[in-house]
C-alpha cells in the first residue's frame, strides 16, 4: 500500500464504525477523538478492524499513535506497505 492507500484504509474503517459521520471534512492533523467524538470503545474497534483486515496487532502501548489521521498513517505505513488495500 502507498501512504494514500493506508490513509484510505483508515478512512474505510472509520466510515464503517461511525456511519453517521461526514469524513470528507476530516482534518488529518487534528485528534480523531475531538472531530468525531470517538471514545475508547471506538478506538478499540479501530484496533480490532486492523487485526481483522490486515492481521496487524497494535500493542496497547502504541494506541497513542492512532490519535490523528496523520499520526496513524505515519505509524501504519511501514507496517502495511506490503499489504493490499481491502475495503
Amino acid at each position, binding site marked *: 500500500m502507498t501512504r494514500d492507500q493506508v490513509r484510505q484504509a483508515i478512512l474505510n474503517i472509520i466510515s464503517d*464504525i461511525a*456511519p*453517521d459521520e461526514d469524513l470528507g471534512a476530516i482534518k488529518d492533523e487534528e485528534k480523531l477523538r475531538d472531530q468525531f467524538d470517538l471514545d475508547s*470503545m471506538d478506538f*478499540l474497534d479501530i484496533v480490532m478492524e486492523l487485526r481483522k483486515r490486515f492481521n496487524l496487532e497494535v500493542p496497547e502501548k502504541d494506541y497513542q499513535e492512532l490519535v490523528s489521521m496523520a499520526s496513524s498513517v505515519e505509524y501504519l505505513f511501514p507496517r502495511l506497505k506490503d499489504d493490499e488495500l481491502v475495503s
Partner: protein
Amino acid sequence: MNYDVIIIGSGLSGLAAGIRLAMFEKKVLIVEKHVEVGGLNSFYTRKHRTFDVGLHAMTNYTPKGVRTSPLGKLLKQLRFKHEEFRLCPQEMSEIRFPDKSIRFTNEFEFMEQEIAEQFPSQIDGFQKLLTHIREFNELDLDDSQKISSREVLESCLTDPVLIDMLYCPIMYYGNAAEGDMDFYQFVIMFKSLFMEGFAKPIGGMPYILKLLVDKYQSLGGELRMGAGVQSIAHKDGELQSLQLENGETLVADKVISSAGIVETLRLCRPKIVAESDLEIGQMSFIESIFVLDRMPKEVGYDKSIVFYSTEPRFKYRVPKGLTDVTSGVLCCPANFQYPEAPPEGIIRVTNQANFRLWDAMARSDYRAAKKEYRERGVNALLTYFPDFSDHIIYIDSFTPKTIFKYTGHLNGAVYGSPTKIKSGRTPVKNLFICGTDQGFLGIIGATLSGISMANLHILQAEAKSEYGRI
C-alpha cells in the same frame, strides 16, 4: 458443533451481543425457544394486525449527531446510521395526578418549566436533584453500592406528590422492585425518559428486530428458533456444554444468557444455588390494546403517553387483587411525529397486575377476568379522559401469565430480578448474563447490555481491560 459463543435468547440484548461477536469473526449461535425473535420486546399478530409487546415508545431518543448518548453509542457499536432506525419523536407526554399535571416533551427545559409552575416551592430542590443526576455515573459496571433513590429524592424534594409524579413514569418503565429503586437505575431511567426522550420506529418492533437479525446473519451469525435450553452443564464451576430441549448437546467456549439471572442459574446442572437464595422479580402488568375506528385525537386523546394516578399518592407494588387500575400508562402510538399517519388509531392501557392470581385462574374465569379488568381500567381512565368505548373495533389484552408464557421470565416480571448483576458474571466460569437482569434498562439499555457484555467478556480478552465500558 463447537462455537466460540452461544447466546441464549434472541431479544434485543442477545441480538446485539451476537452482532458484536459476529462482527469480529467469532463463531456465534443464538438459540431462541420461541418462534419469534424479540423476547420482552417482540410482537404478535391477531386478525391481520401486528401489535408490539413491550414497546410503547423507545426511550433514550436523541437526534442524529448526538454521538455520546446511549443511542449514539449503540448506533456506532452496531454500525447503523441514525436514519436506519427510522425514529419518529413523540409530540407531548404527561404525568397526570389529581389536581396536578406535568407535561413533558423531548426538550428537557419544557419539563423544568412545568415543574417550576406546578411546584414553585420545589424548584430549588429539583435543581439539586438534577445536579445529583448529572454527576452520577450510572453506567459504571463495577459500582455495586446500593443507594436508595427514595432517600435521595426525599433529601432534595419536600412535596411527596412531586416525588410520586416523578416515580410514576420511571417505575412503570423500568423498576423491578416494589416501592423503592436503586439510585443508579433511577438515574438511567430519568435520563432516558426526561433528559433524552421518546420516539417510535416506523414499522415498530418487527422493523427494528428485522434490522438487527439481518445484520447479525449477514455477518455470519447463526440463529436457531424453537431451540429451548434444557440445561447448562458445568464441572467444578466451569462451563461444559448446553443441552437443548430436543436432546441435542452444544459446546461453546462461552455462553451469554439473556434468560434472566434466576432463570439462567436454574438451568445449571449440577445445581449451584439454593432457589430460596435467589430474588425473583414480582412486578408485572396487564395491558389492553384498543383499536379504534378513528384516530385517538378525534376522541380527545392528544398526548403521546400519559402516566396517571387517580389517587393522590402513587403506589408501585404487586397489587393485592388481580390488577390495580388506580394508576397506569396510556399510550397513543399515532401521536408521534410520523411522516404518514398510521393506518389505524390505537390506545394502549397498562396497569400493575399480580402474576400469582392471574396464573392460578381456571381458563373460563381467566377470560372473564381479562374482560372485567379491561373495563375497570377504561372506567378509571374516565376520571381524566373522554370515553372512547363507542369507537372500539378490536380489543386484545395480555396479562402476566401471557408474558411468562412467551418470555419465560418467572412471574411475568418484565423488568426481571430486583438484584442486578452489572458485571454480568455468574458463579459459573464462562457463563455470563446480559439483558434486563444485567441492569441497563429499556430497549436501548437492553441493546447496550448485550453490546457491553460481549465487549467485556469476549472481545476484551483480545484487547485491553478498559474494553466494554459504555
